């Protein structure tokens, strides 16, 4: 994918939040009529517990490399002109803070929706990012997550079909 068509970044929350409007601007183009965007925010509750914040740890170099791979897959899938923005936060986020933004711009809307959805699924299931939830009682816990091992992934996939993932806050 042409680097001008992809903005793939990890943003340290300490240096400012993620701006969804900037992501939409990035994927805009006079040729594009459809922009789709997903914004993942920290929510106040997960699996019945009151959440006060989330700490994200990110393997930034590997994550950005993999984001480029996700973008390539999206280009292959939609087979049209495509701009993508994939930005994930790292650090300690409060409830309501933006954890991730994926934006896709294409000539027509169906491709934008499809690319956006494909990429956020990849970010959630395949990117080297770990989430630790903080609870109102001061406790905290790493989320369960998706294994990146080939053998474990097959097991996880079967598991995921049967019930909600424990780590999906969005």
């Amino acid at each position, binding site marked *: 994918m042409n680097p001008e068509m992809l903005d793939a970044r990890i943003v340290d929350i300490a240096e400012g939040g993620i701006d969804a409007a900037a992501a939409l601007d990035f994927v805009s183009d006079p040729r594009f009529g459809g922009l789709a965007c997903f914004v993942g925010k920290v929510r106040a509750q997960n699996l019945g517990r009151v959440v006060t914040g989330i700490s994200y740890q990110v393997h930034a*170099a590997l994550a950005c490399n993999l984001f480029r791979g996700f973008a390539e897959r999206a280009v292959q899938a939609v087979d049209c002109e495509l701009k993508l923005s994939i930005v994930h936060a790292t650090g300690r986020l409060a409830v309501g803070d933006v954890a991730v933004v994926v934006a896709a711009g294409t000539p027509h809307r169906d491709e934008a929706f499809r690319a956006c959805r494909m990429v956020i699924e990849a970010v959630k299931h395949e990117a080297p*990012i*770990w989430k630790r939830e903080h609870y109102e009682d001061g406790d905290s816990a790493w989320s369960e997550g998706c294994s990146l091992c080939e053998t474990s992934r097959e097991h996880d996939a079967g598991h995921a079909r049967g019930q909600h993932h424990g780590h999906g806050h969005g």
Partner: protein
Amino acid sequence: MIVTLTLYGALGDAAADGRVTLTLDHGARVADARQALTEHARAHWSDPRESLLARSAFASDSAVLREHDAVPDNGQLSVLPPVSGG
């Protein structure tokens, strides 16, 4: 070869500064690194987290590796427990 493994997520607090250094045979593969780390954990970690290690992937700075892949020449491996981004 001397290999430095950087531990992420729920593995990060298993070792001081989140890193483990192991000596592997020249030409070692990811499967060998996994085996050596699991043995190291049994010997040195109060909680060896074997189930979590079994579900963890190994990666270079540019890609997630498979079991039969060679350990990178620069001796740097990342150990990735199940991920939970987004």
